[in-house]
């Protein structure tokens, strides 16, 4: 049996005085958060140094989901790598497909037809809404508003249905091809998208009502995790986090690619750079995406959806089975890959999480010599120590949620 001790309870002033007399200093504590913590959204491990409840230092430990995507890319053809891009930011696979296809097309120096560009815009914006919805839902849940998560997931489910309609897969879409798309959008896609666009703003307003002026949510997010403009630029942060810190920079506006120059939309910019601003920026970005989607539907061009370059684009299956020329192209394209010119390109697209860049070094032939993925989550996570120092341990959860990172992309 354990021995029992008498504990004398004193008032706090006496205790403080006793501590001073004894020369007790506050000891710092190192604790582990993750890699299985629910608010680390995947497999991020944080080593926290705490002074009581206050965060003194943070060391993010990444790499738990490292699969060597860049090494794999060097050992397969450009087309074969498309399914791997689904698994980078797995909350917005369509946007990754689009970015990767444009990068390889830049290397090959080909342009895709307008219909393809518009369909890609639709894909990228749907992916943005889907990713932000998850970000918001998880944000709400992490700070204690579970309802939001259910609301946003209801909407995400509809986007999965749309993805299934357009390419057959809900999650790992692999929809783009080098120089085009896997297939044209089916006839029932547009009516489905119209219905979604009609319902979605109303449902988003419900989320808005639940969170934007919610007292608890405000207390948890306002002036928490502030990232100044200068720090954001110095740390190379991109996407909604950079814009929330007051930098008006969006690749879709700064370097319009894939027909974004034909769309009217606004780029929301924050003022303080705290968690609340990041939340507001994402909310507004979704509304702007809806605007873009409406314009894309209204002005959707007709015509081919694949570039005419026979040596790069996979020919139509029907033609492969009936025509000699197409059969040869199909055979060469599938077994050896496209013969990309030697050279190096960097292409970046505005993904939901920030700037997703592909740096491709080609020495000719069907496989890249080096393919570097500039993942937004990798760079954005680096800002975490700057944001969280001096805050309470419980604020860490809000800061992590407002960063909205995804480890598949961070670790590659």
């Amino acid at each position: 049996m354990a021995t029992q001790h008498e504990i004398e309870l004193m008032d706090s002033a006496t205790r403080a005085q006793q501590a001073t007399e004894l020369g007790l200093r506050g000891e710092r504590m190192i604790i582990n958060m993750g890699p299985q913590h629910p608010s680390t959204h995947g497999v991020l491990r944080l080593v926290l140094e705490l002074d009581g409840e206050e965060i003194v230092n943070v060391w993010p430990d990444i790499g738990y989901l490292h699969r060597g995507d860049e090494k794999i890319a060097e050992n397969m053809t450009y087309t074969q790598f498309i399914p791997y891009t689904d698994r980078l930011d797995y909350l917005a696979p369509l946007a990754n497909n689009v970015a990767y296809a444009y990068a390889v097309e830049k290397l090959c120096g080909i342009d895709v037809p307008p219909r393809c560009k518009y369909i890609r815009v639709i894909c990228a914006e749907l992916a943005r809404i889907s990713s932000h919805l998850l970000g918001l839902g998880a944000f709400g849940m992490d700070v204690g508003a579970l309802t939001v998560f259910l609301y946003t997931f209801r909407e995400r489910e509809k986007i999965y249905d749309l993805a299934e309609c357009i390419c057959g897969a809900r999650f790992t879409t692999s929809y783009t091809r080098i120089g085009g798309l896997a297939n044209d959008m089916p006839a029932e896609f547009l009516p489905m998208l119209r219905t979604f666009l009609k319902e979605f703003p109303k449902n988003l307003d419900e989320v808005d009502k639940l969170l934007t002026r919610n007292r608890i949510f405000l207390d948890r997010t306002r002036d928490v995790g502030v990232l100044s403009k200068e720090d954001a630029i110095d740390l190379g942060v991109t996407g909604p986090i950079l814009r929330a810190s007051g930098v008006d920079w969006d690749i879709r506006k700064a370097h319009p690619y894939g027909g974004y120059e034909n769309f009217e939309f606004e780029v929301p910019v924050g003022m303080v750079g705290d968690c609340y601003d990041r939340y507001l920026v994402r909310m507004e970005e979704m509304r702007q995406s809806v605007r873009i989607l409406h314009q894309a539907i209204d002005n959707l061009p007709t015509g081919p959806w694949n570039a005419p370059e026979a040596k790069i684009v996979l020919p139509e299956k029907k033609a492969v089975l009936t025509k000699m020329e197409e059969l040869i192209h199909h055979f060469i394209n599938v077994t050896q890959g496209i013969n990309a010119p030697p050279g190096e390109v960097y292409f970046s697209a505005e993904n939901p999480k920030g700037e997703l860049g592909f740096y491709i070094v080609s020495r000719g032939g069907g496989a890249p010599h080096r393919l570097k993925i500039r993942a937004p989550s990798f760079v954005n996570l680096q800002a975490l120590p700057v944001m969280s120092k001096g805050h309470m341990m419980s604020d860490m959860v809000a800061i992590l949620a407002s960063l909205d990172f995804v480890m598949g992309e961070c670790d590659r």
Partner: protein
Amino acid sequence: MTPKEAIEKLTAKFGETIAQPVEFRGEHTVAVAREKIADVCAFLKRDCTFDVLTDLSGVDNYGDDPRFEVVYHLYSLTHHCSLRLKVRVSEDDPIVDSVTGVWRTADWHEREAFDMFGIRFRNHPNLKRILMWEGYPYFPLRKDFPLAGQQAELPETAVNAGRVEAAPMLGGPFVPAIGTRSSVVREPRQVDTVVENIDRVKHPTKKEQV
């Protein structure tokens, strides 16, 4: 300021340490002497408004001399233009000056280049492995590292009881580049077979045990 003007300014300031610029698909690349990279970056940030380091990446040109390249992607938020810098690094002395003093974002990028290629960065505040674990003996993105991977000691964890089984290492449907080795000779199946055989000696399969 266009990238061309920036390169002109660079050449005027640093002279022969800046190589002839290369243009491909509208992107400008300049090779910079290894000793000068930190100065060049500081100059570009201060005088040419390249305030963002978008990306930093290592490249292994196996068989060339010098073997490695460190590639910097700079971006100017003021002029909306980008510039690519390159430094060549030899295998015997793979050390480059760190640019963490110019842009803090270089920290993790340089750690990654170290982790994947073994390129070291002088004056880096915390040059440790980032994606692989501390104590991992190889540099996986080097061209002479097999795609199938190599056996290495797994790190000790607080909760691991006894031996940790490594994942089986098998390659996927990989296709060689045109004009290079045939699919029979190239990696990784060759290596896989070797590794498999070694493993089989140690741990015979059920069928063989019978």
